[in-house]
């Protein structure tokens, strides 16, 4: 097979860039910032080239680049993408430059290291999405924790140490389970291999219980990352303590690695177990939807509210994945992107106003619709996209997930959807209530009178996100079609081994 170097170039761009940044002088903050941005924009451009060459009618992996690494163990550097990873790749390369710009004013200490970690983080995320070798995947999955750990731990809020350790331990615990399962799976007959494409033909033949244990080990690791109820408690702390850029990347991309992992590994590797476990997992997902929403409702800290809303939104994604219908899976995939956009925008907005007032307390605000009209409009749009208003992106994802789960033969019970759909009501409650308290009413706080509205740099960051929110809302076809064939083929693969369950 012809090797395609584009993905490797994409992976190396931020790595080389981050090393270059280390050679710059700490005092030249602006040079560092511009260099960081420049590198991430190059990555964005490379990813757009990949999009241009991508053939959405193919169900196999594309842009494959494979170099044998450890011959005796059949471990290789093996990368490639399908439509699903392509979308997430684009989300990563799209969000990174925006978040970098957003830190130009708020991060002032250790700019060099910060930029270094952000670029390393980008490399890690790209790597996770493109790995087609479990060993490579695991290494990158773990490696990615490190920059995030430092971003929270060094540039975070008051309780950053607690939050970063909690984040690290939670995810680490899951990863270890996954490592065991990876080795176990790799050792399964016929030969030792960590090549994902080969393992697709091995996993489904692992027998009942053993397969279930492997599935669970992978699943828990991903579920922590998602985070699925009740493994979510690291998230609010991590989000609240992380600097804005960290929260945006965390919510925008890192959480998606969990759901991406479910689609890429759990479903095709262990189809029988996935189908058996689906009802139980879906119960957790639905609990998460409602739980996250209810807890978000009573938060007094805006950032925490958005963090808990993530628990709710990601619950939808997990439900969509384990419904095993084309509608729901496509919905889950687009919802992953949507969540990155709307929650990303919300975190950015919270960060922007935090930079001005240094408060995240909802009660601190009030009446800013009058003093900051542009900010308020953007906040309203972002909230509505998160609420799932038709015409904006969130609706497409939720609607497809709910429609798909309603007709799911694997779940075969309407109550999942009925309970999940109440999340639609609660989302309106917590976001509009927050909006009402922040934007409406009389200006209660004199400090709010003096602060300026969004500047052009901030608008420049937000506009692309809002454009995508509308674009996906009105014409999601451009995104759905990228993954249409792939999600059908994943479901086809599952169906092949679980004929009984689906009949």
């Amino acid at each position, binding site marked *: 097979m012809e090797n395609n170097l584009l993905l490797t170039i994409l992976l190396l761009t931020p790595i080389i860039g981050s090393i270059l940044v280390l050679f710059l002088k700490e005092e030249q903050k602006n040079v560092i910032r511009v260099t960081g941005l420049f590198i991430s924009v190059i990555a964005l451009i490379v990813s757009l080239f990949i999009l241009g060459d991508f053939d959405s009618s193919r169900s196999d992996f594309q842009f494959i680049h494979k170099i044998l690494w450890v011959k005796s163990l059949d471990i290789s550097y093996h990368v490639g993408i399908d439509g699903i990873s392509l979308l997430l790749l684009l989300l990563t390369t799209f969000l990174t430059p925006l978040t970098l710009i957003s830190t130009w004013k708020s991060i002032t200490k250790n700019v060099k290291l910060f930029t270094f970690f952000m670029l390393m983080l980008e490399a890690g995320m790209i790597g996770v999405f493109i790995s087609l070798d479990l060993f490579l995947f695991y290494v990158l999955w773990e490696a990615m924790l490190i920059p995030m750990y430092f971003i929270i731990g060094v540039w975070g809020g008051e309780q950053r140490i607690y939050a970063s350790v909690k984040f690290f331990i939670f995810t680490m615990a899951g990863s270890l389970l996954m490592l065991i399962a990876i080795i176990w799976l790799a050792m399964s007959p016929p030969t030792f291999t960590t090549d994902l494409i080969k393992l697709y033909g091995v996993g489904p033949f692992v027998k009942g219980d053993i397969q279930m244990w492997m599935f669970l080990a992978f699943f828990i690791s991903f579920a922590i990352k998602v985070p699925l109820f009740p493994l979510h408690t690291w998230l609010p702390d991590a989000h609240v303590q992380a600097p804005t850029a960290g929260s945006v990347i965390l919510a925008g991309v890192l959480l998606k690695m969990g759901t991406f992992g479910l689609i890429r590994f759990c479903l095709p590797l262990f189809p029988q177990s996935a189908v058996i476990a689906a009802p139980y997992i879906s119960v957790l997902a639905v609990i998460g939807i409602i739980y996250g929403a209810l807890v978000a409702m009573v938060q007094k800290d805006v950032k925490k509210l958005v963090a808990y809303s993530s628990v709710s939104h990601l619950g939808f994604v997990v439900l969509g994945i384990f419904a095993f219908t084309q*509608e729901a899976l496509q919905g889950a995939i687009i919802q992953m992107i949507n969540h990155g956009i709307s929650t990303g925008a919300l975190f950015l907005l919270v960060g922007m106003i935090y930079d001005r007032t240094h408060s995240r307390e909802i009660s601190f605000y009030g009446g800013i619709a009058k003093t900051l009209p542009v900010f308020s409009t953007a906040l309203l749009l972002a909230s509505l996209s998160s609420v799932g208003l*038709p015409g904006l992106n969130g609706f497409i994802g939720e609607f497809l997930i709910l429609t798909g789960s309603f007709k799911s033969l694997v779940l075969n019970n309407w109550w999942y959807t009925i309970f999940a759909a109440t999340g639609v009501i609660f989302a309106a409650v917590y976001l509009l209530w927050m909006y009402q308290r922040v934007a*409406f009413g009389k200006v209660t706080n004199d400090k709010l009178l003096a602060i300026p509205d969004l500047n052009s740099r901030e608008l420049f960051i937000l506009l692309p996100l809002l454009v995508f929110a509308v674009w996906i809302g009105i014409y999601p076809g451009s995104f759905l079609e990228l993954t249409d064939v792939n999600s059908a083929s994943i479901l086809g693969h599952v169906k092949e081994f679980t004929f009984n369950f689906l009949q």
Partner: protein
Amino acid sequence: MIDLIHFTIIIPLVGFLINGLLGRKIKNEKVIGAIGSGAVGIAFIIALGALFQLLSLPESERSQVVTLFNWFSVGNLEINFAYLVDPLSITMALIVTGVGFLIHVYSIGYMHGDKGFWRFFTYMNLFIFAMMNLILGDNFVVLFLGWEGVGLCSYLLIGFWYDRKFEKGTVAQAAKKAFIVNRIGDFGFLLGMFLIYLTFDSLNFTEVFSKAASGAVPEATFTLIALFLFIGATGKSAQIPLYVWLPDAMAGPTPVSALIHAATMVTAGVYMVARTSIIFASAPAIMTVVVIVGILTAFFAATIGLVQNDIKKVLAYSTVSQLGYMFVACGVGAFSAGIFHVMTHAFFKALLFLGAGSVIHGMHEEQNIQNYGGLKKHMPVTYLTFIIAAFAISGFPGLSGFFSKDEILWYSYSNFSLGLWIIAALTAVMTAFYMFRLVSLTFFGEERFDHHKVHPHESPKVMTVPLMVLAFLSVFGGYIGVPELFSGEGGNKFHHWLEPVFAAANGRLAENAEHSHFEEILLMALSVSAAIIAMWFAWKIFTTNKELAEKTSNKFKGLYNILFNKYFVDEFYEKAVISPINKFSEGFLWKIADVRLIDGFVNGTAGLIDNISGTIKRLQNGIAQFYAVIMMTGIAIILFWIIFSL
């Protein structure tokens, strides 16, 4: 013009974008108002053109679909931005753009000088855009796009003066309440859509309705679908138990109340039931539910309306009550009578609200009718048009409301029961009473306002001309639907026009017993004379003998309080639903489940490991002899074990 129908949607959207993006810079109220009103006016002209084109077609071809582009498609699910032009949607489109245009024009005068003038017209055009999607959409998802869209506009417009107080709370709270209660309804609508997709494998009207009419689906499925959809309708159209948001929606500017919360948006539920008539007709149990909910809402809202003192509140409860009538009509299978009442109601209720706005405008924002009185001579045009609307809504013979309301009353007897007719007629009597209480307290009697502070004046032409047009429509709008009793067999043009839309549903409904013209005339005479007596009575009491009213209300203090406080339903919801959910979420889910249980477990595990490792750590004390002892002990144990297991 039918091919251009999507422009009735696109042009208001363009108006929204222009005013929304540039309005702040344009500043000139005339330009902004002209853009806003013009967009709706053009949409009206296009809709009118489509109407004439439709009329020129033979009946069988009066249903045409215009497809713009694919919205999304996954699996079997294919949703297009497609718009359906048929008698029902065109009727609704004409009401929305026609009445909408008048209200836009009126607003130029009403909103004059408001800082948010451009914002107002931006939202109003967005509303028209969403509403047109709702009524023209050819599938459930586009309908839902409009459905939620009008909810958003309602939210934005109720909260238009977001820094003001409203009754016990704030305007912002009223706006939020409207959106959330609507979302509860939308939840039902969503479930309905899921079940429709599951059952019919499509969400396009043509496909769903033809499959529904073919009759391979069990009644239980229809029952569930209809129930879910009706939950949606109770939210949007303010029926029991979800009507509570509408009275609070009066916190918005008065033209908003007229357009959104009286003439158009709130009738969306009725439209939706009529649109899905084949599904409802296939679910007789839910038809009965629709009747019961409708009549209860009509009756109870009317009782509340009897004692309210805020001019807009009276009209708000009246709207809730009239919407109940429309559902009664649908529930008894008289869908076109329901739509007919939607139309006449749009005329006279918009007129009443705009008239109320004119009064409020002239009275310097005073809304309490107890502080009005004798305004007749100060604002003659407002007075004249308002009283025409009051006559129309009370069902005075010959006016539009008479034809539509009488039709509903008749069908509630002939298709359902005498009991239903009695409650409906009682409601009509109460309506006549509270409307003329309102008229008397506002325009007649002594002037009860402070002449030093308030100088009542007639509103400018830009406001009074729309009133006159609506007054004209309130008088003559009913003549397109004259009952067959007067016009002869097949003489009801409106019915005939809508007939093809409801043909499938009518075919499925059970045949009703024949009734004689005598019965019809008798019942009509009864209800009309009772209403006229009520009108006269109210006028008499509240103009000349106000003490009597006070005495009566004092005598029945308990009942009066219950009515005045709207049966304490808001308080009940607060105590029984909202507050428990909040307490549970904060007190249990967050502070106990999340922080104590889950985090407690995690931190506990960490603590446990810390303790254990602390203990084990002591073993590594660095004393070689200690290690040697342990090692020897270990070897001894292993030896023993090997020996004894041999």
